């Protein structure tokens, strides 16, 4: 607990890390208060962006649509707000599941060593042998598009990082005499893992996970951009960017930036979101890495 307070105090000492914390908190509160910030048009399915009309041509910002509308008259503001929920949901679910699988496999491999280690790490290598993006696309092609399937595909090809991190970390911690002392005291293996090995080796994984909170939703957005993710009309930043692709430069001459709002608002949101988590991850790394904590 003392360590935790120390970490917090350090975090609030640097302006850069404060910026990261503020950005992350901002997005968290947007996600929480989404129904107030942008009341759903279809309460039974709030993630569907409301459409005002069917015209293909985007409409500029107006009092009804403060960020304007994108291709197909989807409200950009609504998409940005509810897309935050999508992004966080994808991040938390994918990273959460990948952490569970990765920590389990990495811990067992490092603790038991020998052939268990060999077997588990070769399985990890097999998954790592696939190029990440190609592997994910192949899995989605097999199980079909959609947000849930995207999350499964990402989990399947993302747990290896955590497994390797925690394994290396535990191999290092295992050499400490307090682990041997625990054996001498008769502490059972399970408790050695949960009381000694994991608490002392989890930090690199926490740092990596906070960094990944930025990249995983970006990858999901990229898949949506390719049409493999969310269904048409689902509030998702990647989908908004995908809609904007024909309007980045005005297709029929005239002012080239006439439809700037279609790409500006979604991309600024994505950049700020990724920036926030990256700054937070950087801060955590600076604080936790040089074994300053204790």
């Amino acid at each position, binding site marked *: 607990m003392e360590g935790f307070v120390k970490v917090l105090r350090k975090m609030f000492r640097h302006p850069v890390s404060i910026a990261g914390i503020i950005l992350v908190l901002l997005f968290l509160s947007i996600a929480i208060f989404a129904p107030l910030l942008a009341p759903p048009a279809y309460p039974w399915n709030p993630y569907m962006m409301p459409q005002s009309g069917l015209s293909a041509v985007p409409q500029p910002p107006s009092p009804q649509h403060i960020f304007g509308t994108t291709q197909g008259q989807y409200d950009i503001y609504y998409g940005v707000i509810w897309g935050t929920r999508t992004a966080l949901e994808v991040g938390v679910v994918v990273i959460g599941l990948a952490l569970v699988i990765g920590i389990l496999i990495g811990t067992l491999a490092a603790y038991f060593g020998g052939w268990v280690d060999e077997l588990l790490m070769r399985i990890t290598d097999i998954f790592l042998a696939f190029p990440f993006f190609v592997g994910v696309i192949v899995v989605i092609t097999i199980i079909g598009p959609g947000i849930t399937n995207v999350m499964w595909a990402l989990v399947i090809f993302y747990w290896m990082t955590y497994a390797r991190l925690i394994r290396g970390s535990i191999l290092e911690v295992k050499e400490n*005499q*307090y682990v041997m*002392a625990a*054996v*001498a*005291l008769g502490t*059972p293996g399970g408790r050695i893992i949960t009381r000694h090995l994991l608490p*002392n080796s989890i930090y690199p994984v926490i740092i990596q996970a906070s960094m990944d909170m930025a990249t995983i939703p970006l990858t999901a957005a990229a898949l949506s951009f390719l049409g493999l993710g969310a269904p048409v009309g689902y509030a998702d930043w990647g989908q908004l960017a995908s809609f904007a692709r024909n309007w980045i430069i005005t297709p029929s001459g005239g002012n080239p930036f006439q439809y700037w709002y279609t790409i500006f608002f979604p991309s600024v949101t994505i950049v700020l979101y990724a920036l926030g988590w990256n700054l937070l991850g950087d801060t955590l790394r600076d604080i936790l890495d040089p074994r300053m904590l204790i």
Partner: protein
Amino acid sequence: MTLAEVKSIQTTQNQSKNDQILLEVKNLKKYFPIKAGVFRSTVGWVKAVDDVSFYIKKGETLGLVGESGCGKTTVGQTILRLIEPTGGHVFYNNVDLFKLSKGQMKKYRSKLQMIFQDPYSSLDPRMRVKDIIAEGLKAAHIGNTKERYEKVRDYMQRVGVSPTYMNRFPHEFSGGQRQRIGIARALVLNPELIVADEAVSALDASVQAQVLNLLDDLQQEFHLTYLFIAHNLSVVRHVSDRVVVMYLGKVVEIANKHEIFSDPLHPYTKALLSANPIPDPTVKRKDRIILQGDVPSPANPPSGCRFHTRCWLAQPICAQEEPKLEEVHPGHFVACHFWKNLEDQNK
């Protein structure tokens, strides 16, 4: 040394002090594999401990000395089965510990405890002192949380760390205090034998003295038996009743403290003693024995007597025939072909 010979040694011992022997180590071997190549095949063995036998009497302190890498620590750790032995037996109250399953061994864990060398690495930095000391009690299912902490308080008092600090983390203590906490952790289980593996070598001289005196007091209070592993001869001389000298995985000499220091019968022991500094600048040292060369690799030990490559008494026989550990005087064992020459020199 064959088993029969050890038996004969032990029986002579057993006849007089059978009820007093607490722990008997017989032909203990620990080889570490050397792995190489793509398939990690075993290409050789590091014979860290090779056929070591000795016994510890109830209530005594047995010093185990030797230079770095001679296998002292490995002996301590294999006795407690913290690393699995390659061969041999360890009898604790006539139970062979090496024949027990891991589950059966759990029952003996609390009776055989260890104090570790490094007070910084031996305490988990993320656990409170009270939980560190109570860990063994919890593993042995002794008492409830409240009773355990009560015991923790009691033992902190005994080892000289104020119980008001029980909620602190290890990094808030000095090296000496940490070592006291390590001692309390071992002691709280009420053990019979404590293996102290270089327990004071990481501490300052003044703190060393405090901790050694503490160990001495605790020995009398709790009737403890110590296996005291060290490389510092002055410390061993201070604490031990008997001393075992190891060289390259083998026992070369066992004797009581006075005999080993005044009448060493193995050339290695003699060289080791002559290297011990005398804290008096006016003393002229004429008897200093300087050994030539380095300690040979335990992966490829010399033939015959392992010490013959560096021994000034070595004869051709030493490279061919391994000397047996023999009882040359009552309670004084030595493994050397020419111990008589040394005995004459000593006179």
